[in-house]
């Protein structure tokens, strides 16, 4: 479980997050929407302990990480995968070394074992043939997918996505959204999805994945949205949470800023 308690964060005297509090339950999908610069990426960086808040607490599995040092954070980060905006692949490493980065660093697995795991992860995002390429040779959509594969190395229980669909064509966008739904419904991954793409967010909140008799993954729209109870939205306005609730509540919300954002 991830919990924020009255978190304040500022950069050079400029307050970016004000009194932000929320909880993410195991298995939940939290969709954080907000305009550019509203502090969405900052929340993900706080969860990973890449930056520290000025005040407030951030609890991960009941442990306050705001006081932890860089070495202690390593074990916390091992359980969290992060898909960065634009992918943030290591330019100087091949796709194989990027995806297997965690395993190569930990040095506990055999070379062949790593190779197999990297191929499995790349297969999941549909890019097994790109294993020997360098990041510079990949398209924007491929970079994001490799980024997702890298984030999934080591089977983290939580995956954070920072605008994974921004700037992509509709087809690639759909591919990425389907990957996220698959991870949520078939692997039970807890996810935090940061975006200003309300359409992608709506898809995630209204479709689910199942495996049919032949082992193929199907995506369906939920009519009685019971399965999707575990999906919640947070709307950020200038670093403050101005709405929290499920998709239906978001659509019905009367707060003017929410209406402006949703319409």
């Amino acid at each position, binding site marked *: 479980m991830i919990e924020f308690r009255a978190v304040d964060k500022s950069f050079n005297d400029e307050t970016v997050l004000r009194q932000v509090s929320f909880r993410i339950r195991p298995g939940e999908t939290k969709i954080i929407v907000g305009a550019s610069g509203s502090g969405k990426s900052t929340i993900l*960086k706080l969860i990973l302990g*890449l930056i520290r808040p000025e005040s407030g607490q951030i609890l991960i599995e009941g442990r306050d990480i705001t006081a932890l040092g860089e070495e202690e954070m*390593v074990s916390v980060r*091992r359980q969290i995968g992060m898909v960065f905006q*634009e992918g*943030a692949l290591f*330019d100087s490493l091949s796709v194989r070394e990027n995806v297997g980065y*965690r395993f190569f660093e930990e040095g506990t697995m055999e070379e062949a074992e790593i190779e197999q795991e990297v191929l499995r992860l790349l297969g999941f995002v549909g890019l097994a043939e790109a294993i020997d390429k360098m990041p510079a040779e990949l398209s924007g959509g491929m970079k994001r997918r490799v980024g997702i594969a890298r984030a999934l190395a080591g089977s983290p229980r939580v995956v954070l996505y920072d605008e994974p669909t921004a700037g992509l064509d509709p087809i690639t966008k759909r591919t990425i959204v389907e990957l996220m739904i698959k991870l949520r419904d078939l692997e039970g991954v807890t996810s935090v999805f940061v975006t200003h793409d309300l359409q992608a967010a709506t898809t995630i909140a209204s479709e689910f994945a199942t495996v049919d008799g032949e082992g193929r993954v199907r995506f369906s729209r939920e009519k009685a949205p019971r399965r999707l109870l575990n999906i919640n939205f947070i709307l950020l306005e200038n670093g403050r949470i101005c709405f929290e609730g499920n998709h239906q509540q978001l659509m019905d919300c009367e707060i003017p800023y929410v209406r402006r954002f949703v319409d």
Partner: protein
Amino acid sequence: MRVFNVLSRAVVSSIQTIQSYTLLSVRAVANIFSRPVYWREIVLQMDRIGVGSLTIVALTGFFTGAVMAIQSEGALRRYGAVGMTGQLVALTVIRELGPVLSALMLAGRIGAGIASELGSMVVSEQINAMRALGTDPIRRLVTPRILAMVLMLPVLTIVCDAIGMVGGWIIAVYKLLISSNQYWSDALNALQFSDLVGTLVKPVVFGFIIAMTGCYVGLSTTGGTEGVGRSTTRAVVSASIMVIVADFFLNNLLIYFAPLMNR
């Protein structure tokens, strides 16, 4: 009051800069003595710095030595001492010009390279991705660059010194009509043990300054791609100035300790 505010801000920010520069240096050096050490990265950097800079350092040395020999003619002829060209070339090149010019060339080539490489890793979030995946970027990126630079710059300086002597020798023999024998014996006689110590100690210090400044400036890059350009320029300018200032203090130290070394 405004003036006071601006001044106090400037003082505070330069103290902060010195503080974080020192902290980064301490952490980078401390990493040498604990595991894991990224040997592959160290060797890669040594190759890039050492082999890659050989040509420019050799060219710099050759022409500097030659120019010193040409210049010595005018200066020495007045005293009827053209025969002492070897001594003049040896003392200027080995004491001063070899170490300083090699360092300045490398501040341009390597300092800029490090700052732009690390800077673009910062703005594309590769540094954050590295931390998220459990690696200490200082250990993986800064330490190997510093180690490689501190090891390679003395070697390059010796190359510069040696080729500088050869450049002077060619001018001495073919233009000033001094015998080879006289040139070399004169040069070797002029050198003292402290000069050899100096020509090795200086590049160790300069190498540390260049790599450290490149890393520090690169890692503190802000403001996207444009910021990377700014960092690159800043790294070269700061490193060059610091090299020249450090040279002044090292010379004083060497002169102070020379009597002890040359006994």
